[in-house]
């Protein structure tokens, strides 16, 4: 029987209240100021660029002024070229990312859980991972042609490697103490996997996903530079061939911006997904 009545008079609990105080030795700017601070270098760079263009430190054919690039951007946007090419690139990244993330997750779980699987597959995986995406390009062009499959496969490869490696490490870093808790409460293998190992490995897995998405974007642009007739990477090649450096730079700005937004998006999801890890932030 459980009774709520304590059998002896209890002193009031001398325990500290929940929620830890912020670390005092680490100065944090308020949010508004943090945004301003983050803008110092980009704005400085912009200023330098404007100065360089105005004083013609670099030939204007090579370095158009920010205003020219902005005009090119709005022209591209109005003609629909920008949206069309950006969407093509976007879907390639999504397809390749989905494929690569699933493959990487499966591989990583395999490596993390089974030393047999690891012994058989890891060396080959490592060897394949060491060859950069562009190293595979000539071979894959012959194998897959120049169509979408080529881009998706190369992006998938760029995503798979960091996801697999980080998933593996995430799983292996789950403390042995938690596995003992699972044994004490008689967890089945499935319960062990879904309730201990995967949640425990989630920070690592998520790291891999973030790296993977950044990689995907980089790989895609690289592939589009070399073997594509549409997409943001192609826009760069196209602009260079016509000697329209304003188009090139406009595409570069968009690529950088999209990459930045993608990573921010993931970090927002992370705050939600890993909110139990607050003390590590």
């Amino acid at each position, binding site marked *: *029987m*459980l*009774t*709520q009545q*304590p*059998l*002896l008079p*209890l*002193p009031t*609990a*001398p*325990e*500290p209240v*929940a*929620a*830890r105080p912020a670390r005092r*030795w*680490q*100065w944090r700017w308020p949010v508004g100021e943090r945004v301003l601070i983050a803008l110092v270098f980009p704005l400085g760079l912009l200023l330098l660029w404007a100065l360089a263009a105005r004083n013609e430190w670099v030939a204007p054919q090579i370095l158009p002024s920010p205003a020219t690039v902005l005009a090119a951007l709005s022209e591209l946007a109005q003609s629909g070229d920008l949206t069309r090419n950006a969407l093509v690139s976007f879907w390639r990244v999504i397809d390749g990312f989905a494929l690569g993330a699933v493959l990487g997750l499966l591989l990583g779980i395999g490596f993390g859980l089974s030393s047999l699987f690891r012994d058989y597959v890891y060396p080959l995986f490592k060897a394949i991972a060491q060859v950069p995406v562009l190293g595979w390009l000539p071979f894959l062009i012959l194998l897959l042609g120049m169509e979408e499959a080529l881009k998706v496969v190369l992006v998938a490869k760029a995503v798979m490697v960091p996801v697999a490696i980080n998933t593996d490490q995430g799983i292996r870093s789950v*403390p042995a*103490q*938690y596995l*003992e*808790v699972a*044994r*004490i*409460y*008689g*967890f*089945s293998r499935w*319960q062990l996997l879904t*309730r*201990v190992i995967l*949640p*425990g490995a*989630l920070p690592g897995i998520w790291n891999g996903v973030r790296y993977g998405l950044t990689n995907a974007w980089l790989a895609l642009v690289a592939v589009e530079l070399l073997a594509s007739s549409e997409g943001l990477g192609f826009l760069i090649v196209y602009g260079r061939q016509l000697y329209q450096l304003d188009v090139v730079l406009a595409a570069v700005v968009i690529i950088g911006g999209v990459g930045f937004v993608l990573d921010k998006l993931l970090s927002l999801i992370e705050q939600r997904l890993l*909110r*139990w*890890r*607050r*003390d*590590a*932030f």
Partner: protein
Amino acid sequence: MAHAATLDIRNLGKLYPVSGEPKPVLENISLSIKPGEFVSIVGASGCGKSTLLRLIIGLEQDYQGEIVLDGQRIIGTSLNRGIVFQEHRLFPWLTVEQNVGLGLLNSDQSPAQRKKAIQEHIDLVGLKGFETAYPYQLSGGMGQRVAIARALVNRPEVLLLDEPFGALDALTRNYLQQELQRIWEQEGITMILVTHDVEEAVYLGDRIVVMQPRPGRIKRIVDVPLARPRDRGSYEFAAIKEDVLQEFGDGKLAADLSVRRPDPVSAGEWHFAW
């Protein structure tokens, strides 16, 4: 009231391979624990007292001799034996009630019964109102309370405690010792406490098992015939404490006793101050 178990340990021995050669960590341990008894085990670092608990809970196998719980030889872990470690070992991604619920994951109770049992045990350890808190929001003492609730929620017959308060500050430790005693009296189950802290052993135990190291053996068993709640300041209390401390001899051990194990699960990010 939960059924309390009789635990019989007979001629227990355990070998660990040390650089290829099997070395005894426990030798010839015999101990019989009555249902509902509270037994404290004290000893210096390396006397095998934690290993003894790990054998009883079933996390370690391959021993010589017998560990028998209610006539059944112990093989592997079982829901009728609960344990609380020095670190709380709560899953950081689960809330307090979800963590306590882990103890019932494989029980055959209905969801309604589980919910009731979880709430009762959160109340039992005095954490009403913290059901949906995450472990990072709890102090060390609160974490240990949740660990105790998790260990008790499926009504084990024996609760093992492996230096459960060793990492807490002195004030919190004293308070949780009283709480543990209250829970023990309420639940009426058998408890075995491993500790570095002789005062804690005297305060809580019906008997104190003093162990000595290399290999781990029982040196002496001291009865504590004091009524509860015990007065730490009384002469009898001090006399028993002194008696137990005498077993450690030249006082070299007192220093040894104060050594606490570092918390193995602690790694955080750090930044320079600038």
